[in-house]
């Protein structure tokens, strides 16, 4: 028998479990590595053992945030989760919700991806928390992830503001044993008392912003007293360390007993505990800053290089790499602890070839790239604007069929811009889920101007890259949505990318190249990896219709 209050959980799951046990009534998210498993854990548990939580994937992060905010407006607790770049999409409601404040507790979980394991940048969400002036938790381990998620929801309701919890890949996707505590009941629905707080007309927003500014002293006091911001001074003149989140574990691992020779401050909650930092700096010969992500603490300590009276060491000082995730081995070398080189084979072992991710065997995207290559043969210099999904791998050999990838939905807007600059036709490829996430609005622009771009909607009926989440729109509904945006029916083509249909598909595309205007080619075939899941979803949809 497993003890029911001890579970093995990933960092993502620990946060989810903490939110469930804090009494959330809603969970909102858009899939994105390394955040996906937060929502999935809640989704899998909701409906079981009488647990009633509204948990459906949202169209994009902005919608997810707004749905969560609505749930909070109605007095119930909620979690919204996404990857770091997802917060860019949700930034508009996020920032303004710090002015409106919340009613039911609202927990914003953002999973950052230092080293860009599965991302296009490694932005640090703590900066968002800082400039929106809210509390941000940064758990050092899975147990704290669970507890901080619970605490964050209590705090959000008490302070009447959203609270952020920041994860990094290494914690989000690492499992450990978590001890659970007694769950709290859900809130009953109740409207927020004062609608002027929530109606951000300038006159109301000014009062809201003042409220936010007034709360700052309370926030600082909270952070100063918080147990996770722990200061131990071992003696004046000793070297000091400030370590946040999982970096504090790396420091403990690397220094072991030698840690007692340092003054040591751990940071688990922001705003930074300024008084504790002052004490540490005053007592220490030098101060090491250890953080996974951008050098947020280091930059504040040095005032971006304006203060020179204390010796601050970290990423800005050049003692640690400025990019990529922090590792125990980097901490080791910073502290001059000899690192093991591991096992070496005699003689000079040849370098091993890399094994980059690839499109799966039989993937429909491979066929679409083949169709595009064949169809554009003979035309001078046609570029293919890319987007975010498995098909971004089309950049690599053997396809080499994609020439940009910036962010969700950028392919269509960028193709239009390239066309406006005088090239044409411009191709773009975008998956079904990315299209509904952020492709509808740029396609509306292109339809209004009849821009000479050829939009390939790669409809594989699933969100494959992040592990097979259901898509919002597929099959005939995709045709309808494209037509609804104003694309003329005769220039909406549906093809099935199969090797045996290459010739006829190329003919269809060639025809559209000859047409000077907007065409949408829906390249539709189920994902081979998630074929079973797609068929189940189709049966369920048909069941709903009956």
């Amino acid at each position, binding site marked *: 028998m497993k003890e029911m209050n*001890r579970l*093995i959980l990933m960092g993502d799951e620990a946060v989810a479990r903490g939110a469930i046990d804090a009494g959330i009534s809603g969970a909102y998210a858009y899939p994105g*590595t*390394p955040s*996906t*498993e937060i929502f999935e854990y809640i989704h899998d548990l909701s409906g079981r053992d009488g647990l009633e939580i509204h948990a459906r994937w949202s169209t994009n992060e902005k919608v997810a945030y707004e749905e969560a905010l609505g749930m909070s407006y109605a007095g119930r607790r909620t979690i919204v989760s996404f990857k770091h770049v997802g917060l860019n999409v949700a930034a508009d409601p996020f920032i303004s919700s710090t002015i409106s404040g919340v009613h039911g507790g609202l927990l914003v979980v953002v999973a950052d991806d230092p080293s860009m*394991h*599965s991302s296009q940048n490694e932005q640090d969400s703590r900066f968002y928390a800082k400039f929106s002036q809210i509390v941000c938790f940064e758990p050092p381990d899975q147990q704290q992830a669970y507890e901080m998620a619970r605490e964050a929801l209590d705090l959000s309701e008490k302070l009447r503001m959203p609270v952020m919890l920041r994860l990094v890949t*290494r*914690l989000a*996707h*690492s*499992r*450990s*044993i978590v001890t659970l505590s007694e769950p709290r009941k859900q809130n009953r629905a109740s409207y927020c008392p004062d609608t002027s707080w929530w109606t951000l007309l300038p006159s109301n927003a000014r009062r809201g912003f003042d409220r936010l500014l007034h709360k700052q002293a309370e926030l600082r006091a909270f952070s100063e007293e918080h147990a996770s911001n722990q200061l131990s001074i071992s003696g004046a003149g000793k070297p000091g360390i400030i370590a946040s989140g*999982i970096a504090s*574990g*790396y420091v*403990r*691992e*690397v220094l072991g007993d030698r840690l007692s020779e340092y003054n040591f401050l751990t940071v688990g909650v922001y705003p930074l505990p300024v008084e504790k930092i002052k004490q540490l700096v005053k007592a220490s010969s030098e101060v090491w800053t250890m953080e996974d992500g951008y050098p947020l603490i280091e930059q504040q300590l040095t005032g971006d290089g304006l203060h020179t009276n204390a010796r601050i060491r970290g990423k800005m000082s050049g003692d640690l790499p400025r990019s990529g995730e922090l*590792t*125990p*081995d980097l901490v*080791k070398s910073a502290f001059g602890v000899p*690192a*093991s*080189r*591991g*096992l*070496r*084979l*005699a003689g000079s*072992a*040849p370098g*091993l*070839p*890399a*094994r*980059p*991710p*690839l*499109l*799966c065997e039989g993937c429909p995207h491979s066929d679409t790239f083949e169709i595009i290559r064949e169809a554009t043969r003979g035309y001078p210099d046609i570029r293919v604007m890319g987007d975010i999904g*498995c098909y971004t*791998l089309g950049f690599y*050999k053997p396809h080499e069929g994609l020439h940009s990838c910036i962010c969700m939905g950028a392919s269509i807007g960028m193709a239009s811009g390239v066309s406006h600059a005088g090239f044409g036709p411009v191709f773009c490829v975008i998956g079904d889920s990315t299209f509904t996430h952020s492709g509808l609005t740029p396609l509306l622009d292109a339809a209004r101007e009849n821009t000479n771009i050829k939009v390939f909607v790669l409809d594989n009926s699933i969100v494959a*890259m*992040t*592990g097979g989440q259901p898509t919002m729109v597929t099959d005939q509904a995709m045709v309808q949505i494209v037509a609804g945006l104003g694309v003329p029916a005769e220039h909406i083509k549906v093809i099935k990318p199969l090797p045996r249909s290459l010739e006829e598909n190329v003919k269809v595309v060639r025809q559209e190249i000859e047409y000077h205007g907007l065409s949408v080619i829906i390249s539709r075939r189920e994902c081979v990896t998630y074929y079973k899941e797609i068929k189940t979803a189709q049966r369920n949809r048909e069941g709903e219709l009956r």
Partner: protein
Amino acid sequence: MKQDVLLCGVGGQGILSMAYVIDYSAMEAGYSLKQPEVHGMSQRGGAVQAHIRVSDKPIASELIPLGQAELILSLEPLESLRYLQYLSAENGCVITDITPFVNISDYPELSSIYGQLLQLPSVLLVNGAHLARKAGSPKAQNMILLGAASTRLPYPVNVLEKHVAELFARKSERLVHVNMNAFRTGCAVSQFHQALRQAGVADASISRVLPWLDFEPWPVPEPVVQAWIAFFQDPAGCAATEGLWRSELILPLEEEAPRKLREGD
């Protein structure tokens, strides 16, 4: 007690299932645990790895520091070489499947990969693909390898078995059966290897032969073990193993087999 294990292979080979069994066995033994893994993009046929750190004391860091892993357990031979810098120079051991997963154009010569592996002070090569097919499914390669590591893991075999069963019970009865078969076959490999090592046979010698032996999901009978020990202790026996790599013959595990092999039957 403290053990750092690095699992590796190619996305889709079932590394996380192996990790599941070890994680739950560690929890049952009352140990603390940290197990970071790779998700997302790399799962599309890329190199994938998971670190498993287990200790009777709290563990501070998610990642295994370089040079500290006691065991690299790999589902693919090229991948097993990718993480040697994590392996302890004092007591590190590599257990790997010999079956290449070739999805890159510059995959090295297999003989050079095996050559490097056989140089390691402690290594066990396993023909996971063959044994998994025999156990009932080529997908059960991961459970063969997990079993092949069983004598090196600090958990009783029955605890590991319980969690293998639990993992596949969510899927189907048949899968429980197949994977349990595979796991037990792997255990037979592990116990056979351990007996030979204890008799003083070098890992490199054992690993030249072991992939071509036809293990069953139960321990190799003692007289057969003894016959193989005698074979390896005889210089003529070791010489007879050279041709095995090229022939890729699968030898039955019986008392007569070593004699026949030595005499070139």
